[in-house]
């Protein structure tokens, strides 16, 4: 299935205006196939941990991950209700179309 989401990149423009992303540690909740994750990486973030409850979507996201971003982005199956991460560890948490 080929659906282009936000070809005008308005989403990225809005996110860029939020904060200085460079060097930030980010948690993305509901990353799906990683569409937005890759856009977040382009903002200069230091690390992105991206989770989604769907095993299939995480598999797709890992498959689509460019080698040059492999050290920056970590995909993991997980739920927003039970975050398996330490307290006080992220600069920014993004809920991607999930609330």
């Amino acid at each position: 299935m080929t659906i282009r989401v936000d070809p005008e990149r308005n989403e990225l423009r809005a996110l860029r205006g939020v904060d200085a992303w460079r060097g930030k540690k980010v948690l993305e909740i509901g990353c799906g196939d990683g569409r937005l994750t890759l856009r977040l990486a382009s903002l200069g973030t230091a690390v992105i941990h991206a989770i989604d409850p769907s095993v299939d979507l995480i598999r797709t996201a890992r498959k689509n991950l460019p080698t040059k971003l492999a050290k920056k982005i970590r995909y993991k199956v997980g739920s927003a209700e039970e975050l398996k991460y330490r307290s006080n560890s992220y600069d920014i948490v993004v809920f991607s179309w999930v609330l």
Partner: protein
Amino acid sequence: MVHALRETHRVLKTDGLLLDLRPGPVHRRIGIEVDGQYEQLAIMGEQLLDDYAANRAVAEVIQEGLFKPVSRTQFNCNRTMALRDFASWLADFADDRAAPQERLLQTITRAYKSRSKRKKIVVKGPLVLKVLRKVES
């Protein structure tokens, strides 16, 4: 939802930001674009109850003093697709009785097939980006 937001509060650093990005509670508009010209053909009429529930959850954690609102931005977000993908996309709303799928699919299919030039289906709807800042409790 509220529990997920409380979990987010826990993992955020002091002064960290929570970004809530999702479609706004507005019915999506569906049309066809031919050579850059957009023509609206239908409005979806889907249920928006989940959107309202999410808004209430965000309001609740602000009320609890876990976060304070920083900004709210609304902007257009299009999805473009060919006819073969439209039916699959529409299937995501299969349980939504407020959005009559069959009639919508027929309308769009008929209009799509009647256009001979370069064409694509465009689904339009706003995205809302809310930014909240963590408040130490």
